[in-house]
């Protein structure tokens, strides 16, 4: 009984620490770096979503960058064409991407593994071309420039943002917005994973045949997983559009899909805590690689080497490491001597 | 006293952090057919894996006087021990003939290998018929025969057989055991067989060990174990 109380209080302490760090960020991080942090938050949200799909339900997707594009362009189109305020477009962007995610989930019912990878990959590769094609809506190759075309709808136009009477700089606001949504998304994912749906996801991941024999509706589960992770990707894409104040086909290439997948695996498939580390890895590594040397080709070399090293040292990602570190603690808390 | 062909002394084995054998000692003499019995999870398969080097093990394992406790699986095969794994281990993508050929992978005497292929197919005419078929298309019984035939292609001195009766019809099982006994009696092939079907194994073997939770609980001549009612009821379930 005392042990359970200890376990719960440790958890509460961890949650409190996270909230404190989140709230006090402007004291810790400069305005300039808050922008990067906000960008990392975008990755974080997309990665949590992909983890739900790949880590927990075992469905591979190489197309999440394209789902982010759906979200980003939905937001941008609403702002530029319909004159919505940018932050209010976020939910709709998530829903739009969720619907597309659901549609992508449909081929997943027939395909698996490599073939599913190809299907999602095809989607990711085709996205820039598709975006250029429907130029009436998407602005074609130029994209949509929120700041130029709809400045009044862009948050932080004046450099500061006032919310509930508090004023912060634009970058700090973007940080709060992104990570606030990120923490909520994390909480939602955590609740899903802990609950019945999470168990259903894992059943499908571990053995489709066994899950189906136990009465799991495979079609519903898989498409739901795709739709949910699509919502996350859409929200992430929307936040990206809001941060950059511009969207164009080059913002959402196949490379983005790869980065999100890398972040998910480095963070640890099937583990939520590691996702923050995965997001930071994907956000800051390219920059650090350039610091090593900016000679032609060297940053990519360093970047690739870093990815390989991390995977060799931590095959189950940061999440796997965290689990191993926490095991003595959890074993002692939850097992009788 | 002549040293046994295979000797295990206080052998321990584990799968990662989980210990499966807690000190198993047994022996198989030249030309003997010995059975290892016990319930699920008793460590029977692990014992065979300890011999063939496919699990982390410690303790003394001697084959023909030489220690093989640190040998890699390839080295154990080269020493003359053939392991027919649980579930057959059929190379499903390869043809029946190719399965046989790979059984002789470590041998260098090509002429003798060809002769052995003929001889082994003689024991299993069904396999000869299906020579070019993909091994994955064979029935369970045929795959078991193929696994056995493949092991024989090594010309082993000791055969490790893991649960040959698993998932097979009684008639097929009887036929397989018949072949194993014939090989043991006519060619002097030493056999260590793990079986859940205790009655069958006790009938075919001369000695038997009963494992329980990673240790030898009972051992002795098979005829005696068969007659001993208390052993049969407590350990063998019949």
């Amino acid at each position, binding site marked *: 009984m005392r042990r359970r109380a200890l376990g719960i209080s440790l958890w509460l302490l961890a949650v409190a620490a996270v909230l404190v760090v989140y709230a006090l960020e402007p004291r810790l991080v400069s305005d300039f770096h808050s922008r990067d942090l906000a960008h990392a938050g975008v990755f974080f949200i997309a990665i949590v979503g992909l983890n739900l799909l790949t880590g927990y339900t075992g469905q591979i997707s190489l197309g999440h960058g394209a789902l982010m594009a759906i979200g980003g362009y939905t937001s941008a189109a609403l702002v530029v064409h319909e004159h919505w305020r940018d932050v209010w477009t976020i939910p709709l962007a998530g829903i739009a991407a969720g619907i597309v995610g659901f549609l992508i989930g449909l081929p997943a019912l027939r395909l698996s593994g490599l073939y599913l990878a190809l299907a999602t990959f095809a989607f990711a590769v085709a996205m820039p071309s598709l975006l250029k094609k429907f130029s009436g809506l998407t602005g074609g190759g130029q994209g949509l420039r929120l700041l130029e075309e709809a400045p009044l709808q862009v948050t932080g136009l004046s450099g500061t943002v006032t919310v509930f009477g508090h004023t912060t700089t634009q970058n700090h606001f973007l940080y709060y917005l992104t990570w606030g949504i990120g923490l909520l998304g994390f909480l939602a994912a955590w609740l899903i994973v802990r609950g019945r749906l999470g168990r259903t996801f894992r059943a499908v991941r571990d053995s489709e045949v066994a899950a189906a024999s136990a009465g799991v509706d495979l079609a519903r589960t898989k498409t739901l997983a795709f739709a949910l992770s699509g919502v996350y990707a859409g929200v992430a894409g929307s936040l990206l559009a809001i941060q950059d104040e511009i969207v164009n086909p080059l913002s959402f290439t196949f490379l983005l899909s790869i980065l999100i997948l*890398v972040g998910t695996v480095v963070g640890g498939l099937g583990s939520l805590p590691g996702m923050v580390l995965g997001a930071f890895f994907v956000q800051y590594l390219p920059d650090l690689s350039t610091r090593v040397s900016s000679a032609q080709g060297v940053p990519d070399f360093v970047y690739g080497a870093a990815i390989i090293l991390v995977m060799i040292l931590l095959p189950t990602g940061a999440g796997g490491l965290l689990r191993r570190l926490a095991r003595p603690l959890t074993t002692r808390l939850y097992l009788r001597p | 006293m002549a040293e046994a062909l295979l000797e295990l002394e206080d052998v321990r084995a584990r799968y990662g952090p989980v210990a499966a054998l807690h000190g198993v000692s047994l022996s198989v003499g030249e030309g003997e057919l010995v059975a290892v019995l016990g319930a699920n999870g008793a460590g029977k398969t692990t014992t065979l894996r300890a011999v063939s080097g496919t699990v982390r093990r410690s303790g003394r394992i001697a084959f023909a006087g030489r220690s093989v406790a640190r040998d890699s699986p390839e080295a154990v095969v080269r020493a003359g021990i053939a392991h027919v794994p649980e579930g057959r281990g059929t190379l499903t993508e390869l043809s029946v003939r190719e399965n046989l050929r790979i059984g002789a992978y470590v041998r260098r005497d090509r002429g003798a290998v060809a002769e052995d292929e003929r001889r082994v197919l003689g024991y299993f005419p069904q396999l000869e018929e299906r020579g070019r078929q993909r091994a994955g298309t064979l029935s369970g019984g045929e795959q078991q025969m193929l696994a056995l035939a493949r092991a024989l292609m090594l010309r082993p001195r000791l055969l490790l057989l893991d649960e040959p009766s698993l998932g097979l019809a009684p008639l097929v099982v009887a036929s397989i055991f018949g072949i194993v006994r014939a090989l043991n009696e006519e060619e002097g092939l030493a056999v260590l067989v793990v079986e859940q079907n205790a009655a069958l194994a006790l009938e075919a073997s001369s000695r038997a060990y009963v494992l329980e939770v990673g240790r030898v609980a009972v051992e002795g001549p098979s005829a005696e174990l068969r007659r001993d009612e208390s052993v049969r009821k407590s350990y063998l379930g019949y």
Partner: protein
Amino acid sequence: MLLSFDWTQLAQQVVIGLASGGVWATLAVALVLIYRSTGVVNFAQGEMAMFSTFIAWSLVHHGLSYWGAFFLTIAISFVGGVAVERAVIRPIERAPVLTVVIVTLGLFFLVNGAARWIWTPETRSLPNAFSTRPITVAGVAFSIQDLGTIAVSLAAVTLLWLFFRFTKLGLASRAAASNPVASRLVGVRVSWMLALGWGLAAAMGAISGMLTAPALASFDQNLMQPVLLYAFAGAVLGGIDSAFGAVAGTLLLGVLINLLGTYVDWVGTELRLPAALAVILAVLLVRPAGLFGRAAERRV
């Protein structure tokens, strides 16, 4: 109607398509080799092939003939492939599949970066493997380059097939890919079979690169990226669980893309890849394991 159809043009376009397909086929075989032994698609296969092509360029630059460089590069690439497997794949042999996938992605960046660092990104060119004169067969003009490319690709794939089908080592390699656990029990050194697979894959990739480069006026470090896409797509179309499927699939894809580009106006040159991918997806929905693939038996 039939008489006015330009059969000559069709024949020519088919041959051109087969030539592109042939180049993709050798890379596709490399992908299959690694997929069957290691269980992943090696995203870095194209970059490794590109690296080999640059090595070939350097050899030619230092005075070797095209064919001398060709065979020497194949040998070097084989060793390189084995080295990569030992250094980077072996440590994660037991890791989850996606981990290995990410490592190959890391290799992609690493090899690409290395190639851009060692050979600065100016464009280069390789001499032609075959003469560029056209040859007339049954009254139709074809390029010797195309025919030679098809011949070399098929020869390479055939030699590989012969190796796997008729040699002891090839048999052991197939056994290791089919059932590594059981193969160990007959004495096959499964770990080294993996390394062999990577070496052979690298060699095939080198052939693909060295056939791709001469056909272009010039090339740079992005040479093999489209080839990888097409090789992957073709292999999946044909069925990635067999080399035959991969070769058939890529040849078919080559012809298909070329014919689409020639005869269907709105496809043009930009939409070729998306169009091809759409076709492949359509095929996969009907035959999920590819045209010639075997639906895997699923053990419960």
